C-alpha cells in the first residue's frame, strides 16, 4: 500500500504541523457494530431475545398445558416442533424456558459482579483488616470448585430455581472481588490518580472518575465472556434436577427430561441444545469484541 497526496511546497511547513492523525470518536455500540465478529454475535443475540420475549406473545400454545393423547408428536402443522413426553408444545416451552435460562444467567451475573465490585473496591481502597478478611474469604471460596459449592448450597437450601440462583451467586462472587481489588490496587498508584490527588481532588471523586470506569470496562468484558458458561451452569444444574421443577420449562431441564426419548423423538433434545449453543456463541463473540474495543490504548 502506498499513500500519495498532493504536495504543496508553500504549505509544507504548515502541513507538517497539522499532519497529526484525526480520529473520530465513535460510541462503543457503533464500534461494536463495525466489528464483524461482534455484529454476528449481536444479530444472534437480538434474534434469541426476540424469540424468548416476543415469541410467547404471538405463539398461541400454552407451554404448561399437557395433552396426554398427543404425546411425543413429531414436528408438524399443529405443533411446529412437536410435543414432549407430556404432550406439551415444544416450541412454546423453548420460548418460556429461554426466558428463564437467559434471564437468570443475566440476573446471577449482574448480582455477582456488583457484589464483587463493591467488596473488591472497599478492600482495595481501605486496605487494613477489611482487606485481609475479605481476601482470606475469597481464597477460601476460590479454593472450592464452583460447581461442587453450588450443589452443596442447593443441598442445604433445598432444590428450587431461586435457591439455585442464590447458590450460584454465593459460589462465584469471589473471582469478581479479587479482580476488582487487584485493578484498584494498581489504579490508586497510577500517575493520573496521583496528579489528581495533588491537585486537590478527593478520593471519592477520583474513584468515580478515574478508577471505576476502568474497573467497569474490565468487568463488562469478563461478564460477557462468562455469560456463556453461566447459561451452561444453570442448564447443567437444572439437568441434574437441582433447579427448575416441573411443569416449569428451562433449557437445561428440558434436555434432562427428553434424554430418555432420544432414540424416537430426537427433536426434543436438539431444540434446547442448539439454543444453548447459540446463546453461548453469541455471548462469547460479543465479549471477545468488547475486549478489543474497550482497551483504551488501542486506536480505532
Amino acid at each position, binding site marked *: *500500500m*502506498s*499513500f*500519495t*497526496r498532493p*504536495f504543496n*511546497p508553500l504549505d*509544507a*511547513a504548515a*502541513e*507538517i*504541523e*497539522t*499532519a*497529526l*492523525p*484525526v*480520529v473520530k*470518536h465513535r460510541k462503543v455500540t457503533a464500534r461494536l457494530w463495525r466489528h464483524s465478529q461482534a455484529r454476528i454475535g449481536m444479530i444472534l443475540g437480538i434474534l434469541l431475545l426476540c424469540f424468548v420475549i416476543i415469541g410467547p406473545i404471538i405463539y398461541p400454545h400454552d407451554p404448561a398445558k399437557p395433552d396426554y393423547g398427543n404425546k411425543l408428536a413429531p414436528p408438524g402443522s399443529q405443533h411446529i416442533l412437536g410435543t414432549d413426553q407430556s404432550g406439551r408444545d415444544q416450541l412454546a416451552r423453548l420460548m418460556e424456558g429461554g426466558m428463564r435460562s437467559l434471564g437468570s444467567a443475566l440476573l446471577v451475573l449482574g448480582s455477582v459482579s456488583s457484589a464483587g465490585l463493591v467488596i473488591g473496591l472497599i478492600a482495595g481502597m481501605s486496605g487494613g483488616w477489611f482487606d485481609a478478611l475479605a481476601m482470606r474469604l475469597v481464597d477460601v471460596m476460590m479454593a472450592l470448585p464452583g460447581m461442587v459449592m453450588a450443589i452443596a448450597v442447593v443441598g442445604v437450601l433445598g432444590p428450587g430455581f431461586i435457591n439455585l440462583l442464590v447458590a450460584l451467586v454465593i459460589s462465584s462472587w469471589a473471582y469478581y472481588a479479587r479482580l476488582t481489588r487487584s485493578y484498584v490496587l494498581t489504579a490508586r498508584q*497510577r*500517575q*493520573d490518580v*496521583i*496528579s*489528581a*490527588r*495533588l*491537585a*486537590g*481532588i*478527593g478520593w471519592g471523586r477520583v474513584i468515580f472518575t*478515574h478508577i471505576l*470506569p*476502568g474497573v467497569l470496562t474490565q468487568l463488562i468484558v469478563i461478564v460477557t465472556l462468562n455469560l456463556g458458561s453461566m447459561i451452561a451452569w444453570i442448564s447443567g444444574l437444572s439437568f441434574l434436577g437441582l433447579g427448575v421443577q416441573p411443569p416449569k420449562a428451562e433449557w437445561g431441564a428440558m434436555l434432562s427430561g427428553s434424554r430418555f426419548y432420544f432414540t424416537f423423538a430426537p427433536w426434543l433434545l436438539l431444540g434446547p441444545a442448539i439454543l444453548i449453543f447459540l446463546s453461548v456463541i453469541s455471548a462469547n463473540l460479543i465479549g471477545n469484541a468488547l475486549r478489543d474495543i474497550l482497551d*483504551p*490504548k*488501542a*486506536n480505532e
Partner: protein
Amino acid sequence: MNEIATIQYQGLNVTYATGVHAVRGVSFDVRRGECLSLVGESGCGKTTMSHAALGLLPANTRLSGSININNIDILAASSNELRQLRGLVAGFVVQDPYAACNPLARVEDHVAEAWHAHGMTVPDQAVVQGITELGIQEPGTMIRRYPHQWSGGMLQRATIAAASAHNPNLIIADEPTSALDADRADTTLEALKQTGAALLLVSHDLAVVSRHADRIAICYAGKVVEIGDSQEIIKERRHPYTSGLLKAIPSLHEGLPEPMPGYPPDLRYQIAGCAFAPRCPHAMNICLETPPKMANGVACHLYVEHDHAKEKITRQTSTKELPRVSDRPPPEVKAKVLAEAREVSKTYRQGTRLTHAVRSASLQIKQGEIVGISGPSGCGKSTLLRLLATMEIPDAGEVYLDGELATRAGSKKIHSNLARKAYLMPVFQDPISSLDARWPIWRTIVEPLTAPHRKNQLSKEQSRQIAYDLLKGVGLENVDIEARPAELSVGQCQRVAIARVLAAKPKIIIADEPTSALDVSVSASILHLLVEFIEQERAIVIVSHDRPMLNVLCDRVLEMYDGLLVSNS
C-alpha cells in the same frame, strides 16, 4: 575506501505491511574493525536498518536494494544461510539485557547458548574466558548466578560476550546502552569495541556515541542525511538537522538546549523534496522539490552549487523569544522557603530485607529556584520527591510546606493540607501513563481547576476554552482537544501533562525524569516550557540522571547516592 567492507548497504528500501516506508534508499558500509553509529530520533528508521541486516524484519515486509555481509546478500539469503550467519559471522546485542535473558537460567547458560545454537560443544573455559576479557571480576562465581543478581551494565557485557563468542566479523548493537545508567554506557561501549569486530551501533544518544564511534551516520525520515568522522560531524555540523540535533543536547551545546520546530514527516506518504525541509531554517525552493543527493558525506542542497532556485524561502517563524538561563534573575538570597525536608529518612521493608531509600536528607526549596537532583537509578531520588509531596510519611524527620509542618515521622496524620491543594504538581517520566487513557485531553487539563477547594463552576464550554488556551501555551494549538492520549506522540503527551500543571498554578513543580522518555529535540522544548514557568514566587525541583542537562538548567544541583543527599553547587 579500498578496505574491504564488512557490511555494505546499497539502496535499501523497507516498507512495512502498514504502509510505512521506513527506510528510503540507504547506502553505507562498515569497514573491518570500525565502529559506525546510526544516530537519529525515534521513527527515523535506524532500528529497521539494523534489523534488516540480520533478516529480523516481519515476513510481510517489502524490501529492495541489497545488504551484503561477507559477500552474502542478506535479502536473498535462505533462512538456513541466515542461521549460519547469525552468531558466527554477525553477533547481535539488544537494548535491555534483562529482557534478553531468561530469568530462570544462569548467566553461563546464556553465554554457552552461543555455541549450543550452532550445535557445538562449548570449549573448555570459553565462557569464563569471554567474560573475564570484558572485565568482570570473579567470573567463576558470577556466571553461576542468575541475571537478576547481575547489574545491568555487567549483564550487558555478558550478552556482548555471547554475541562475540565466535569472533564474528560484525556485531550489530541496537541501543545497547539506553536501558543502562549513563556511567555504565561508556564501559559497555568500550566492551563492544574491545571485541575487535566491526560494529554497527544504533543509538539515539549523540553525546555518548560521539565519544566512542569512529564514524557517525545521522538518520532522518528513513534516510542517512549525513555520514562521516564522528569528531568532524560534531564540529562541522554541516547538515541543518545535525546542527539542530546538537543544539538540543545539553552536553554538546552551550546554554539551554534549543528545541527544533515541527515534527518528523509521516512516513506513510511520499516525500517530494528533502524530508527535513519543512523544519529547516535554511530551506530553499529546491529543497521542497528535489531530494538532495549524498555528496561528500552530506545530503543537503546547501552544499551543492545550483544555478537556479537558490533563493531562501521566507516563512513566518515564531517570534517568541526563547528564555535563556542567563537572562533569568538569580534567586534572591533571602527568598522565602517554599518547601523544606529536615533530616527525612524512608525505609522500605520487603520480607526481611530493608531498603534505605532515603537516609537523613535535608533540602530547602526557595522561591525562584530550579533545584536539580541527580544520581543513578535506585538512589532514592523519586522517594525523596514523594516525601516532599507528602505522598508518603517519613520514618524520621519532618517536611514543611510554606513554613508549616506537613508531615512528621511517627504521626500518621498529614498536618498541612497544602499538598492536596495543588501547592505542588508532578511531572512524570512516562507522559502517556500520567494522563488518564480514557479521557479526552481537555478534561485532563482542566481537572485541577475542578478541585473542590477552588469553588469553580465551569461549564463544559468554558473548560474546553481554557484547555484550548493552555494547549496553545504549550505549543499544541493544532491538536484536537478531544484526542485521547494514545493518539498523541510521547512528546505531545508530556506537553499535555505540563498544560495540566500550568492550569493548577502550583508553587512548586516536582519533575521526575521529565525528559528521559523523549527524543532530544522534544526534550529541549519541554525544558523550555518548564523554565518559562519559573517566576519570582515559584520553584522547580527536577530529578534526572542527565547531569549535563541539570547543569545548564538548574541554579543548584544536588547529588544523591544510595539514599544520601550531597550538596555541591
